[in-house]
């Protein structure tokens, strides 16, 4: 009985030490995680999202271009897609916005339709607003040759 309690205590302490030392090692990584909103608990609204900025360079072939403007309040639901209001085929000439890519009209079976394919409809699954944010996980990624400039 007594040894059981002892073992429990010991396990608990070992776990605690492991947790603390682990997090210390993790924090000593080269990436400054305190910059990341996910880690530092940065209150919403304090990461500066662009009103409008120049487009960042792509890093690899077929990377979905990022959004160089704020998308606050943009509605993309099954019933309405505010992005296509400007980027859609009917209006891109008026607005001067980049036209939606023709690949977005091809569905998973390879059929071309005049409507945006369902799997390409929710723009922000792939296209995200550009932001000056620290990477959440450290990595050794380097842009493909000729990219990232």
């Amino acid at each position, binding site marked *: 009985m007594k040894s059981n309690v002892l073992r429990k205590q010991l396990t608990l302490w070992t776990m605690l030490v492991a947790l603390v030392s682990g997090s210390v090692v993790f924090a000593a990584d080269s990436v400054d995680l305190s910059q990341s909103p996910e880690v530092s608990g940065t209150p919403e609204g304090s990461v500066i999202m662009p009103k*409008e900025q120049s487009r960042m360079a792509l890093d690899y072939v077929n990377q979905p271009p990022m959004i160089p403007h704020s998308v606050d*309040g943009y509605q993309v639901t099954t019933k309405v897609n505010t992005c296509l209001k400007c980027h859609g085929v009917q209006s891109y000439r008026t607005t001067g916005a980049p036209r939606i890519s023709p690949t977005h009209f091809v569905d998973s079976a390879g059929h071309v339709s005049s409507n945006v394919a369902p799997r390409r409809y929710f723009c922000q699954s792939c296209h995200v607003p550009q932001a000056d944010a620290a990477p959440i996980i450290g990595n050794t990624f380097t842009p493909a040759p000729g990219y990232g400039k």
Partner: protein
Amino acid sequence: MSKDKKPGVIRRAWTWFRTPSHLAIGTLLAMGFVAGVVFWGGFNTGMEVMNSEKFCISCHEMRDNVYQEYMDTVHYSNRTGVRAVCSDCHVPKEFVPKMIRKIKASKELYGKAMGIIDTPQKFDEHRLQMAKNEWARMDGNNSQECRNCHSFDYMDFTEQKTVAGKMHSMAIKEGKTCIDCHKGIAHKLPDMTGIPNGF
């Protein structure tokens, strides 16, 4: 005896109304003035209360639908704290249009009372129709409620995004009104298939 019968209510009121008073004309005028101030002040205060967010939500079917959506938008909360509440967008500021709007809005209360839009699902089914009503109203008064705060005359296009500046000058040239392009500013949009995007 029947000749002494008390006359009817209307006749008595009329007689009272027509009978000259013992009071001096000045006193009567002064009393009338004070009564007028009290009545008009009371009326306007009442109007203000009726146009407050809380009052709107208490009867119109909005607390679980449009009000929730509105709370996520910049017209509810923003860095400067300048707000637009329900009535700022949905009730005209001028007296006669305001009264007309108030009367028309009773239809919405009917919708609530009869349970036509009392669940978010039912509300969504009627969303397009309700939105169309509101778009038509805004089209009709040249988006006056938007323009109470946002005015083309004072927009500095150089401060706007380049696209916004371009589109706004185009809108002025073509005589467009805010709601033509800016739909669903504070609310979720209904099914927009077949609705022109305004430019």
